[in-house]
């Protein structure tokens, strides 16, 4: 059913924004982390999204092939920020190098806050889309009343 396609697409959008929010939380939580299993300071993580045709029946698959079907969003991969770690002078720190500098994560708190606003607003937009799709379906059912 077409309505359920719209709900499915919006649902994938909600999942995507939630994943983004999880990564922002991880970045903020690890803003002072100097040790990781891979060694070195924590590196800022970010997600790359890609459009994926709605899974469904053969007819939907054919439409998707022709580029006519709505596309879900899915996380393609999680990448690490390649910006160099920040150098902080703290000779007493156990992770300091020979010159007394500690390599801190390349996380900018303000940048993360802005991304958080963006993720929250996108989530709200998807919720609004779901509500609109639901209202349309219920309006259609009012035809029979």
């Amino acid at each position, binding site marked *: 059913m077409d309505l359920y396609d719209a*709900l499915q697409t919006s*649902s994938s959008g909600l*999942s995507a924004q939630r994943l983004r929010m999880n990564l922002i939380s991880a970045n903020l939580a690890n803003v002072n982390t100097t040790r990781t299993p891979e060694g070195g300071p924590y590196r800022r993580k970010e997600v790359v999204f890609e459009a994926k045709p709605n899974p469904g029946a053969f007819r939907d698959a054919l439409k998707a092939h022709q580029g006519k079907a709505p596309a879900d969003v899915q996380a393609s991969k999680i990448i690490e920020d390649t910006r160099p770690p920040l150098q902080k002078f703290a000779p007493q720190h156990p992770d300091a190098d020979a010159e007394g500098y500690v390599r801190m994560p390349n996380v900018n708190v303000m940048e993360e806050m802005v991304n958080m606003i963006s993720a929250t607003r996108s989530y709200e937009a998807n*919720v609004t889309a*779901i509500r609109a799709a*639901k209202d349309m379906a*219920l309006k259609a059912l009012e035809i*029979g*009343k």
Partner: protein
Amino acid sequence: MNDIASISSALGQTGLGLPEPQPAQTAAGGFGELLQTSLDRFARTQTDADRAVENLTLGGNTDIHSTMIAVEKAGIALEMALQVRNKLLNAYETLMRQQI
């Protein structure tokens, strides 16, 4: 189309409408089958919603929005089933009001 056929065949049986050579059973079976399929689909949305809520409360699935969407789908399906029932009852009452 099927319900119209079943109504007109019912009219034929009561001797009010045009005489219907076609046996009433196949038409009724066609519509009944359709109704059964949509009822099954409706029941499935209800089960899906139940399972989603159960998963969420038991901590298996922490996807709040999937659960909410499943519940909403079940709500829309219920509304749809209600409308179908209303239409069926209307048709039945219209038939029963016929002057004989």
